[in-house]
C-alpha cells in the first residue's frame, strides 16, 4: 500500500510538472507583452500552439538523417526525466534518491548535445551557427553550474536535491554570503540556459541574434511541438530548482498527509507564478547583449559561484 502511494505521489510530480509547464510559459509571455504595453496572447495559448503543432504535418528536409527525427523526442525525454526528479512539492519521493544535482546537470547537458547535433544534421548555415553558439554558452554555463552544485553541497553535505532541500528547510543555515552568490549565479545560468533575454531572445527570428531558434529553425509539426514542450519544461525545471534550493518553504518533508501534499502543491505553484512574473520584469529592463559579451556575462556567474565556494571555506567550522 505504502509502495502504491509512493508511486502515485511520484507520478503526480512527474505529471504536474509537464502539465503546468506551458501555462507558466504562457504567464511569462503575457506578462512580457503587458510590460511592453501590448495585450499579449491568452494564458492558455501555449497549450493551443502545442495542440496545433501536434496535428500539423512534419516537413523534413530531404537529407535529414535519423538524428534529426529522433532528437526532439530524446530532448523532451531527457528534460522531462530531469524535471521529474527536482523536488517540487515534496521531498523524499520514490525516485528522490536519484535526484542528484550533478545527474540533473548531466541530463540537461545530454539533451543539449542532442539538440546541437540535430541543428547541424541538415547542414544549413543557421543550424550550424545556432549549434556553435549554444555550445559556446554551454561551455561557459556548465562550469558555473558545477560550482553552484559544489557550494550547495559544501553547505548541505550532499548533492542529493531532496536531502539538500530538507536540510535547508529544517536546519538553520543562517545568512550566508555563499548562498546569495550561488543564487545570483544560478539565476544567470538559468537565464542563459533557457535562452532568455540578455543572452538570447526566445521570440526572435532575426538571423544574427538567434541561438536556440536557429537550431530548431527547420523543425515543424510534432517535432517542433516536442522541442517547444521541452523548452517549457526546462524553464519550470530551473524555476523549481531555484525554489527548492533557496526558497524551500512549503515543501512536504515529513509524512505525506493529504494536507501537507496539498499545501506543498499550492505553494509550489505560487512560487512558479511569482518567478514567471519576475522573469519578464527582469527581461524587459535589460537589452539583448552581443554574442561577444556572453563570456563576460557568464564569466560573472562563474566568478560569483567560485567566490561562493571560497567564502564557504573561510567560514568552515561554524
Amino acid at each position: 500500500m505504502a509502495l502504491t502511494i509512493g508511486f502515485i505521489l511520484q507520478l503526480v510530480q512527474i505529471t504536474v510538472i509537464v502539465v503546468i509547464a506551458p501555462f507558466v510559459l504562457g504567464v511569462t509571455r503575457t506578462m512580457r507583452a503587458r510590460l511592453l504595453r501590448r495585450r499579449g496572447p491568452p494564458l492558455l495559448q501555449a497549450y493551443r500552439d502545442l495542440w496545433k503543432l501536434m496535428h500539423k504535418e512534419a516537413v523534413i528536409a530531404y537529407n535529414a538523417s535519423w538524428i534529426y527525427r529522433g532528437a526532439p523526442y530524446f530532448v523532451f525525454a531527457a528534460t522531462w526525466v530531469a524535471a521529474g526528479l527536482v523536488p517540487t512539492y515534496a521531498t523524499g519521493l520514490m525516485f528522490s534518491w536519484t535526484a542528484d544535482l550533478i545527474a540533473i546537470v548531466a541530463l540537461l547537458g545530454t539533451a543539449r548535445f542532442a539538440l546541437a547535433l540535430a541543428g547541424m544534421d541538415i547542414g544549413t548555415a543557421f543550424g550550424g551557427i545556432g549549434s556553435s553558439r549554444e555550445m559556446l554558452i554551454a561551455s561557459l554555463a556548465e562550469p558555473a553550474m558545477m560550482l553552484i552544485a559544489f557550494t550547495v553541497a559544501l553547505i548541505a553535505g550532499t548533492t542529493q536535491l531532496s536531502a539538500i532541500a530538507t536540510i535547508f528547510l529544517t536546519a538553520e543555515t543562517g545568512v550566508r554570503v555563499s548562498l546569495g552568490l550561488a543564487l545570483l549565479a544560478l539565476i544567470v545560468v538559468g537565464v542563459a540556459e533557457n535562452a532568455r533575454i540578455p543572452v538570447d531572445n526566445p521570440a526572435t527570428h532575426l538571423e544574427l541574434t538567434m541561438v536556440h531558434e536557429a537550431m530548431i529553425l527547420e523543425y515543424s509539426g510534432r517535432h517542433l511541438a516536442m522541442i517547444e514542450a521541452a523548452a517549457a519544461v526546462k524553464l519550470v525545471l530551473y524555476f523549481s530548482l531555484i525554489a527548492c534550493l533557496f526558497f524551500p518553504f512549503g515543501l512536504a518533508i515529513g509524512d505525506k498527509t493529504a494536507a501537507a501534499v496539498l499545501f506543498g502543491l499550492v505553494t509550489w505553484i505560487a512560487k512558479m507564478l511569482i518567478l514567471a512574473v519576475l522573469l519578464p520584469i527582469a527581461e524587459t529592463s535589460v537589452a539583448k547583449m552581443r554574442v561577444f559579451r556572453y563570456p563576460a556575462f557568464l564569466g560573472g556567474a562563474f566568478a560569483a559561484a567560485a567566490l561562493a565556494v571560497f567564502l564557504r571555506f573561510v567560514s568552515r567550522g561554524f
Partner: protein
Amino acid sequence: MPPLWFDIAHLLAGGVLVLSLVLLYQDRVTAVINVFALQAVTLALSVGWQAFIQGQPALLVTALIAITVKGFIIPMALHRIVRRLDVHREVEQVIGGGATILAGLALVALAILVMQPVTGTGDVFAREDISFALGVVLLGLLMMITRYNAVTQVIGFMSLENGLILAATGARGMPLVVEISVAFSVLIAFIVFGVFVFRIRERFDTVDVTVLERFRGERKEHV
C-alpha cells in the same frame, strides 16, 4: 548553528570582498565609481556592526569616516572629475575582462590559503576579516595594474585602503589616532591624485597613463 551576530558580520565582510571583485568586473568609469561608493558604505556597515558586537565605540568613528568621506565625498568628487575630463566611456584594460576576473579569483584563493593557517587559532573575526581584507588589498593592487585610466587607478588605490580598514577592525580595532591619520593621508593622496590627473590631462589631452611611458621614452611607438 552559527549565531546570528556572526552571520551578519560574515555577510557584511564578505560583501566588501564581493564588491571588490564587482569593481574589477565593471568596465565603465561611472559604474566603477558607484560600485566603489557602495563598497565604502558596506565597509562602514561592517565596521559599525563590529563596533556594536565588540563594544568598541571608537570603531563607530571609523565607520562614520568611511561612510562620509569614501561613501559620499570622494565618489561625488570623482564624478565631477570624470564629467569635467569627459572620460565616462569604457575603460581600457591592459588584459581582457575575463582574464582579470580569473586573476582576481586566484588572488582571493591565495589570500584565503595564506591567512587560514596563520590565523587558525585566532578569534573568529580575525580569521574571517583578515583573509577577506588581504583579498581586498590584493584586488585593489590588481585593479591598479590592469587599468590604463588614471581615475580607475585612483579607485583601485582607495579600495585597497578599504581592505586595510577591514583588517584593522577584525583585529579588535586600531587606535583612533592611527585611523584618523590613515583617513587623512587617503584624503591627501586623493587630492594629489586629482592634481596629477588634471596635469596629465592638461599636458597630453588624455588620462591614459601609457602616454607617460611614451613621454619618458620607454615605449617607441606613435602616439
